[in-house]
């Protein structure tokens, strides 16, 4: 009977499979939770840091796995669509495939642990702002893959109505998606000020990269946040390369968690989602208690180049990428942990993979088929204005309406 069920579930796919599998799975006694040891964080101006052990429940584990897998698949699909020229423009992904074409896409492969881990450590009512490697965060902050892919392809079903593209995606309590390096950090400090002012116990996660850490405005934001004790968690996603420049060649001090000087900091293993989660919980609690800002450095990696026009191997070796891929891949780490502690079975996780793939396929279909925004919208949303005003066009006889 069991064998037959297994065979049936292998042949069929989709919802029909689920009940049969559930029966199979339920009969297999999984643990409800397991305790894991995580790496201790390096501390700066802190007496104690996040705990070194954490409990992962089966439910959370499956949720994180699904989310990370979704982000990864979504980035790979975006990569594919890019190569088919269905996505154009600049695209910064988080994934690790070689790109041959002349394009820009910024992807977040292997930085999935960061976005999912951070989200796990905060509430949906907290705020988040990041730079241009934003697809993963857009998803973890609540938007669907459909809306994200449609925004990449520039269609009206996209989260920014097709007008923002890869670098400018927004959601509730997620302020983007910002193209100019470092510019989002003072914004994050401002959002934190609003949190403090509104008194609802919310925090703001302000992310930037190792390259941006050398921008002057970051230090201005540090100063303001510390001076006014703003509930701002500055997070430096250190993936070791600012485009093509390794951190050693760009920064006088690569201890990014200490760069806040008077702001306490911690250095976190960004490839381990549990480590990220615990550190985030710790940092959020610190901020919520009114002690002021805190800085987190997430040590992570990107398989891909900086963007799709960067093959990613001219400034680092393939061996390095392969090594990280085989030893520190965040999805693999979580999977191994869950399987080895009997929190889930390999088949179950594979099933999630299949479902995720299908979801991404559907989303990609939508993103390719959805119509582009109508030309009239070229002038929309420049100002907030009522009644609509006219936008001067390319010559004195062309005008567009600006509606907002």
């Amino acid at each position, binding site marked *: 009977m069991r064998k037959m069920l297994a065979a049936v579930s292998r042949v069929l796919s989709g919802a029909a499979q689920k009940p049969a599998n559930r029966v199979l799975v339920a009969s297999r006694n999984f643990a409800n939770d397991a305790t894991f040891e995580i790496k201790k964080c390096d501390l700066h101006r802190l007496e104690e840091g996040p705990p070194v052990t954490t409990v992962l429940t089966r439910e959370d584990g499956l949720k994180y796995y699904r989310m990370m897998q979704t982000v990864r698949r979504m980035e790979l699909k975006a990569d594919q669509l890019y190569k088919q020229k269905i996505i154009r*423009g600049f695209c910064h992904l988080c994934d690790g495939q070689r790109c041959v074409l002349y394009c820009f896409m910024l992807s977040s492969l292997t930085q999935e642990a960061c976005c999912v881990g951070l989200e796990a450590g905060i509430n949906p009512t907290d705020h988040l702002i990041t730079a241009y490697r934003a697809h993963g965060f857009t998803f973890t902050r609540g938007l669907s893959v459909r809306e994200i892919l449609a925004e990449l392809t520039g269609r009206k079903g996209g989260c920014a109505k097709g007008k923002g593209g890869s670098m*400018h995606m927004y959601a509730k309590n997620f302020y983007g998606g910002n193209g100019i390096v*470092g510019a989002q950090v003072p914004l994050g400090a401002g959002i934190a000020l609003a949190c403090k002012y509104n008194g609802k116990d919310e925090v703001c996660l302000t992310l930037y990269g190792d390259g941006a850490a050398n921008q002057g405005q970051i230090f201005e934001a540090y100063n303001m946040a510390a001076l006014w004790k703003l509930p701002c968690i500055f997070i430096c996603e250190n993936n070791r390369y600012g485009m093509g420049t390794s951190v050693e060649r760009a920064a006088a001090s690569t201890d990014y968690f200490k760069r806040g000087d008077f702001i306490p900091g911690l250095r976190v293993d960004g490839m381990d989602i549990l480590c990220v989660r615990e550190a985030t919980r710790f940092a959020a609690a610190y901020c919520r208690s009114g002690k002021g800002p805190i800085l987190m450095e997430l040590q992570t990696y990107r398989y891909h180049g900086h963007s799709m026009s960067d093959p990613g191997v001219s400034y680092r070796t393939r061996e390095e990428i392969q090594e990280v891929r085989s030893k520190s891949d965040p999805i693999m780490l979580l999977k191994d942990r869950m399987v080895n502690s009997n929190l889930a079975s390999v088949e179950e996780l594979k099933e999630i993979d299949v479902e995720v793939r299908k979801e991404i396929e559907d989303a990609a279909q939508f993103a390719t088929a959805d119509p582009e925004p109508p030309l009239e919208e070229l002038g929309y949303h420049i100002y907030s204005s009522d009644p609509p005003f006219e936008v001067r066009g390319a010559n004195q006889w062309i005008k567009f309406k600006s509606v907002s």
Partner: protein
Amino acid sequence: MNLFQSITSALDNSLAKDPTAVIFGEDVAFGGVFRCTVGLRDKYGKDRVFNTPLCEQGIVGFGIGIAVTGATAIAEIQFADYIFPAFDQIVNEAAKYRYRSGDLFNCGSLTIRAPWGCVGHGALYHSQSPEAFFAHCPGIKVVVPRSPFQAKGLLLSCIEDKNPCIFFEPKILYRAAVEQVPVEPYNIPLSQAEVIQEGSDITLVAWGTQVHVVREVASMAKEKLGVSCEVIDLRTILPWDVDTVCKSVAKTGRLLISHEAPLTGGFASEISSTVQEECFLNLEAPISRVCGYDTPFPHIFEPFYIPDKWKCYDALRKMINY
């Protein structure tokens, strides 16, 4: 050579001739994201061609410092869209140094290079043409070449010019434009516009990539309407060659100016205003400006946004029939 190779050639000549010249910016050491500095570090050493961290304000401020001591500083800003953190340094420090010190000090040996203009897929932050922001600032010079031959001569002039210069390089032409370019150094004078094609019915003024668009419009006009166009490449935006343009408008009586940057406050407005002052009685039709829309540079709407040849042609036709 194509455009980026001609830039490399100009930089090569500068570094060879001037022992104090240094090139710096983000990623210039390996050759730059557009290959403009390929081979220079190997040839001249890592203390003359070096990378800076990601800090535009720092790059320009640092460049001003180098220039004040008398050395030649050639700074690269990776995209013109990123020049804004450095805006304060350029406008408040570089442009005013000589003036405020009564000519005791100056940073004339500073040249800032930046890729400029639309490229087909740049979207909001890889396509801007900010020449108008800088045109409003006395004390600096702003130059935009249209081709490899022009680029090398103009860049060498900028580097040798005793005033801080901003040199915008049309990024879409980096590979697309190819010309015969001499290997030895040569100069093209600044603040001189060039009449590329003589005509008698209408003057078309543009700079950078748009010169090629406007040239095509001129041949379309000749073919379809029998209209003879005079095409002028402005070359230097600030200080601009008023005489050449006015002389031309006095002859033709009509002026069409075209640029990718948004219409309101774009440099065409300055040209238009000055020309109507100088040539009011010569004008047969209102001066036409065919520019980008007054919106941020769009992601998906780019082909509709740019002032392409059809929009220019349409405007030209309306002017002829005024």
